[in-house]
């Protein structure tokens, strides 16, 4: 009985250890395939990201989207991702800045499968992340999977 208990605590400790080792890596890699709820559950700082997207889009085929990121304090932006959680392929765009900058501005046109929040998650030079999201209502959808 005692042996069994020791074995059990050992197993618990091992799984805990593995969890501790793996969790930051999983967090770092998987943001691009998270759902809306999971993205909100990450509780990332909502500051410094200004997004512009029409609140109502007649078609999801081509929606103008502009991003303006200002890193807080002395931090610099290393890269950022644009994520549309309800799209079949949620990672819309991944931009890397070979020379980290304190602010960055760009614009593009995106596809949305349905009404959703579009997220931008920026990776800063000190390893922290800032995020922002903007909702859009799409009345005709695009980029949905018709083959399944």
């Amino acid at each position: 009985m005692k042996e069994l208990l020791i074995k059990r605590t050992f197993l618990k400790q091992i799984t805990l250890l593995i969890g501790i080792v793996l969790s930051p890596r999983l967090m770092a890699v998987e943001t691009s395939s998270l759902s809306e709820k999971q993205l909100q559950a990450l509780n990332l700082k909502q500051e410094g990201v200004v997004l512009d997207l029409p609140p109502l889009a007649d078609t999801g085929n081509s929606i103008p989207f502009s991003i303006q990121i200002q890193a807080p304090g002395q931090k610099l932006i290393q890269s950022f991702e644009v994520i549309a959680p309800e799209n079949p392929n949620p990672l819309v765009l991944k931009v890397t800045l070979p020379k980290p900058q304190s602010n960055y501005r760009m614009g593009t046109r995106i596809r949305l499968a349905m009404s959703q929040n579009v997220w931008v998650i920026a990776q800063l030079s000190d390893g922290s992340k800032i995020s922002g999201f903007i909702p859009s209502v799409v009345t005709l959808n695009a980029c949905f999977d018709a083959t399944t």
Partner: protein
Amino acid sequence: MLVLTQQPKMATLNPHPIRINVIGTPTIGQQVEVKVLIGHPMETGYRLGDGGNERIPKNIIEKVSIRLNQEVLLQAELGTGIAANPLFSVFVTVLAGGSMITVEWEDDRGVKGRAEKLLMSA
């Protein structure tokens, strides 16, 4: 009766034209917006053809880079969520004299495109 034996030609012979436009007057030290439009279908692979049976194969641009001389303005990996004929606008601080804007892209079939435009300060 007219029978089309060839695909109707586009207005431009290049299937993947690139247009680079500068919005506003480039004044030294000021920022101007540079808009880059790349002609590409950006086929998602999620659409069906006219018959409703055949899947239209995926064909998207995967990498885009926009540079001003040697400085990288935009280096991005695209997904299926970018609209057909991708448009990117970046903001450039105008340098004295002429500087070269270079756009390069590569799609998932290995097709590459490149265009250059000289940005002259006013």
